[in-house]
């Protein structure tokens, strides 16, 4: 309001601007959202009421605990062994511990080859199927974990070095890999090499008889 001119007159202060409020439109989106929430909750209420009724028909919880216990006890577990059963020691080898279990001598897991990670039958080593050993892929082992896995072809089943224990400085399982040739072992002298029963299967073995009188290159009649 403009002030009056001249004379001593009261000047009305100017009111601050007061824009009009927008018209009150109905908040449809908010209402629909609220209605949807209520519907969801009412649905949840009906589910809970159904569940409360169904609980009345349940057996005591011990019945279900019995089921769990019976199931667990009835099933064997490769990570848990029963009393008095021994492993073949394959895992012990794999983790750097030597296997001195004599029963393991015929087990392919004794090959020292880290490729055969699984040995599920090795609870009793004699049952281990050596033909499954696919050690040909051993070459890939470069990790320091595979300390003995440098064999190019590990023919586990044919290692018959009965004399390994006397010549090999390492356990027999490593000798199979032909890293340590038991041919360091000196063959006995024999008067008749044809009847010499000493055999060496190590490939590095020259298969020569040290008999003074023997002219054959191999004592083994099969060679």
């Amino acid at each position, binding site marked *: 309001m403009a002030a009056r001119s001249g004379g001593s007159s009261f000047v009305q202060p100017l009111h601050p601007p007061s824009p009009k409020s927008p018209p009150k439109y109905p908040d449809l989106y908010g*209402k629909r959202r609220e209605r949807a929430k209520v519907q969801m*909750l009412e*649905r949840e209420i009906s*589910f809970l009421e159904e569940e409360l009724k169904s609980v009345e028909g349940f057996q005591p919880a011990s019945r*279900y605990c019995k089921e769990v216990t019976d199931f667990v006890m009835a099933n064997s577990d490769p*990570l848990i062994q029963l009393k008095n059963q021994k492993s073949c020691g394959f895992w012990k080898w794999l983790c750097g511990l030597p296997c001195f279990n004599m029963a393991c001598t015929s087990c392919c897991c004794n090959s020292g080859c880290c490729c055969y990670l699984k040995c599920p039958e090795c609870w009793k080593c004699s049952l281990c199927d050596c033909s499954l050993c696919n050690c040909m*892929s051993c070459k890939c082992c470069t*990790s320091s974990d595979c300390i003995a896995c440098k064999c190019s072809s590990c023919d586990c089943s044919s290692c018959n070095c009965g004399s390994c224990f006397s010549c090999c400085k390492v356990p027999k399982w490593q000798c199979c890999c032909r890293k340590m040739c038991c041919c360091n072992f000196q063959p006995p002298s024999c008067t008749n090499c044809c009847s010499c029963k000493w055999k060496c299967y190590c490939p590095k073995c020259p298969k020569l008889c040290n008999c003074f009188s023997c002219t054959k290159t191999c004592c083994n009649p099969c060679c």
Partner: protein
Amino acid sequence: MSVAELKERHAAAIEAVNDLRERLKQRRQQLLDADGHKLHSFSLLYYLAGYARSLGRSQVTFGPTDLVCCRTLQGHTGKVYSLDWTPERDRIVSASQDGRLIVWNAQTSQKTHAIKLPCAWVMTCAFSPTGQSVACGGLDGMCSIFNLNSATDRDGNLPVSVTLNGHKGYVSCCQYVPDEDIHIITSSGDQTCVLWDITTGLRTTVFGGEFQSGHTADVLSVSINGTNSRVFVSGSCDGTARLWDTRVASRAMRTFQGHEGDVNTLKFFPDGNRFGTGSDDGTCRLFDIRNGHQLQVYYQQHGDKEVPLVTSIAFSISGRLLFAGYSNGDCYVWDTLLARVVLNLGSVKNSHENRISCLGLSADGSSLCTGSWDTNLKIWAFGGHRKVI
């Protein structure tokens, strides 16, 4: 009805829901008490353990060299977030913060594939039942499928075979439906789980979400029942686990309350009638799917220290052992029947140097693989003989 009236109804409905949940909890408690097997005043915590002890069950004991680290799989340059074994052969796929999937030969430690991902923010991976494909998902909101037999592109990368696009949030977990290479279930930050048909790339079914009854927060994990592949469970930031039937999308078959924090991980028990969970509240729990009973809580007191979160769990093949990875680097081996920690793989020789983020058991149950924020994976197996006293 006015908005004010709706809000009143909303408040009343919330009160009714809370009241019903409390009544349900008390009724379940009565069913546990009625048996007289409770060993402790907190019977809800020790129920299965109390029952097993009352039968004279002995605890599994481990010597220091019994469960040992047989392999360390080195190759990732970032945190390992997820891993999965193939059902057929001893191969493992792992996903890492470095934006790669690596497929490992578990026997030889060899890497057979190193897949550079289109989106580096991967959170989950899975092997298909035939071992021909791997799937992964993450912050891009998509699930990508790679055929391992495909030819690589000019840059030497394996191309994406199929992209499953439809989630409105990140993909937290994925698992192929057993015995099928064409169906996969994913869980997501958009509060839903989805069953996909990989051949068409389309969603077959959506579980939960805006117009259906389901989780009310991010879904973090799924586990499909090995004995009935139509049934799966999901775990969520809403603190619940839910049981779903893939034929019924409109609602969860059952909701499992109890946890006081996010349910980060869950796995079915080998018998298919129960499942285990792991949570931010530091506990693992065992639930029965047929009646909703919480049969056992697995929790170790930590004194005044901060309670470590459970990041991942797996059951041994018999169900006797529960492996649980924690945010502080621990990996407890629980005796599931007696609810006791029998070994901590986080404190043995060659253990991980950081949080264990994922773990999984091989198909034959003979080996456990753990993945960690220290960028490595480790394979553990039985190394000696053990007595059950």
